[in-house]
């Protein structure tokens, strides 16, 4: 699979003209223009925090919605680890109806992506049909891989057959809008191929990794959930890289992105868009964007030059 033209540097004697920051940052994802390649990872940007991200993200992605309201898991839900955190939120959300009623709050004049999760193939299909008809929604991300919800067991989320089935049903339900399949690390290449074959327009790689924290003083499990943060970055980078080698659809890369250099690395590994999640709890996302702009300036490159632009012969 041949994607992208690789890095296009000015040759010897060629003056690379400084491009305006806006032009330098903009990327295109499934026909949607994003002012920057950064978007929030689902479940990491509350309505109350939108004021903090103005001018940073190219699209907005609110927390996953399910058909009915979900209370989520009992606390404790978060535990700190070195370079990250383990969470077990359990997809707490008010359900689709209220989600759509409150969606205007997320209107920052940016493309709006909606993350959905169902317990069954039918639920995924029904969600997509309803969300897809909403004209405010630019694209749908299928949360196929939340480690904190036993949606018919892990197999439902993580085998190529189940991924293909869900994506195919959703594809049929949303003929006119892009759908992204969000995958977990386990079996990511096979699942990516299955999602692409079933008609996914893009792939989100990757979700948190199953993890556990223990309170040895109390001899108890603290949080059994998904690990996020810089601790998982090299794993996520590998996943994006491996997937990008075998699929033709764009990738929304993420997992531990915490700096502008991380953004560049994910794009070089093959991502078109990069998701920022846990890092936004501990850093100002604006700083991450500024660092990325500095990187582009230093490298005399635009964001679109980076995607899949590693200097190597790719097979």
């Amino acid at each position: 699979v041949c994607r992208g033209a690789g890095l296009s540097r000015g040759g010897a004697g060629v003056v690379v003209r400084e491009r305006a920051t806006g032009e330098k940052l903009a990327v295109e994802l499934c026909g949607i223009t994003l002012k920057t390649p950064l978007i929030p990872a689902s479940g990491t940007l509350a309505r109350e925090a939108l004021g903090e991200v103005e001018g940073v993200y190219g699209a907005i992605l609110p927390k996953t919605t399910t058909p009915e309201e979900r209370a989520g898991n009992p606390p404790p839900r978060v535990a700190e680890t070195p370079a990250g955190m383990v969470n077990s939120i359990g997809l707490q959300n008010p359900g689709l109806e209220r989600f759509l009623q409150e969606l205007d709050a997320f209107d920052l004049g940016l493309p709006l992506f909606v993350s959905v999760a169902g317990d069954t193939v039918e639920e995924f299909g029904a969600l997509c049909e309803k969300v897809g008809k909403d004209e405010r929604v630019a694209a749908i991300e299928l949360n196929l891989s939340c480690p904190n919800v036993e949606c018919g067991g892990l197999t439902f989320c993580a085998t190529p057959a189940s991924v293909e089935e869900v994506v195919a049903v959703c594809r049929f339900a949303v003929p006119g809008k892009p759908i992204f399949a969000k995958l977990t690390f386990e079996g990511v290449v096979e699942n990516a191929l299955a999602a692409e074959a079933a008609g996914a327009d893009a792939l989100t790689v990757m979700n948190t990794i199953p993890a556990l924290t223990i309170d040895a003083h109390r001899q108890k499990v603290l949080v059994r959930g998904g690990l996020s943060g810089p601790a998982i970055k090299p794993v996520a980078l590998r996943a994006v890289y491996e997937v990008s080698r075998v699929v033709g659809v764009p990738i929304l890369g993420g997992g531990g992105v915490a700096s502008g250099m991380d953004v560049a690395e994910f794009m070089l590994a093959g991502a078109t868009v990069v998701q920022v999640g846990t890092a936004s709890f501990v850093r100002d996302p604006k700083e991450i964007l500024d660092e990325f702009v500095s990187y582009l300036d230093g490298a005399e490159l635009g964001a679109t030059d980076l995607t899949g632009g590693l200097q190597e012969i790719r097979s």
Partner: protein
Amino acid sequence: VKFYGVQIKDRQRVGNYTLLLYRWRGPVEPGQFVMARANGYTLDPFLARPFSFYDHDGEVASLLFEVRGRGTALLDRATQIQVTAPLGRGFEIDAAGGQVALLGGGVGVAPLKVLSRRLDELGMSHDVFLGFADARTAEVAREFTGSTVATMDGSVGSPGTVLDAVASLEGYQAVYACGPNPMLAAVKRVVAEGSICQLSVEERMGCGNGSCNGCVVPVRGGGYVRSCVEGPVFPAEVLAW
């Protein structure tokens, strides 16, 4: 989340606790909190820690905490810290008056200092009851003039919990409490029907701005709400404890 660097002006040892003072202008409501960390963004510790404002006089803010792990140990030594504040919903004070009781348990006495200051400003008389494990943690009680103290080991004040320091909560129009969640649940059970009872909860937090949904408390009628945005102070009747 955007953090701001502030210089530590003073650090005081108060028994088992540390009091950090730093210059902080801007509005602070009693019960609101700060996410704080010692050295800016680091991989370990990774998250900032939530602390109630202990006091704020318009110029200087202070945080009271106990060293429990690496995050607080580093804060204990820091000459400069990073904060994001003010966060959350604080105590809602009913200026209609009546007798007010403040109940604090352990390091949970923190927000009662600035609350007491506010009540004084409003000319509302109030009684302060504090419960501690032992004499060393109870030293902070001296910061609360006229407070009534209980200790679990009986070394200071009445033996037992903060509720053993209170003869009766009847007759109080409003009860404001902060401490470990089991203490708050016990306070809720004994507050007279019809009285105002507001509880400042303690939960582990990820972000402090409502995004991670990590710091939830169970509410009546089912489900959970975030203590960082909907709280950390809740009317007692809202909580499913």
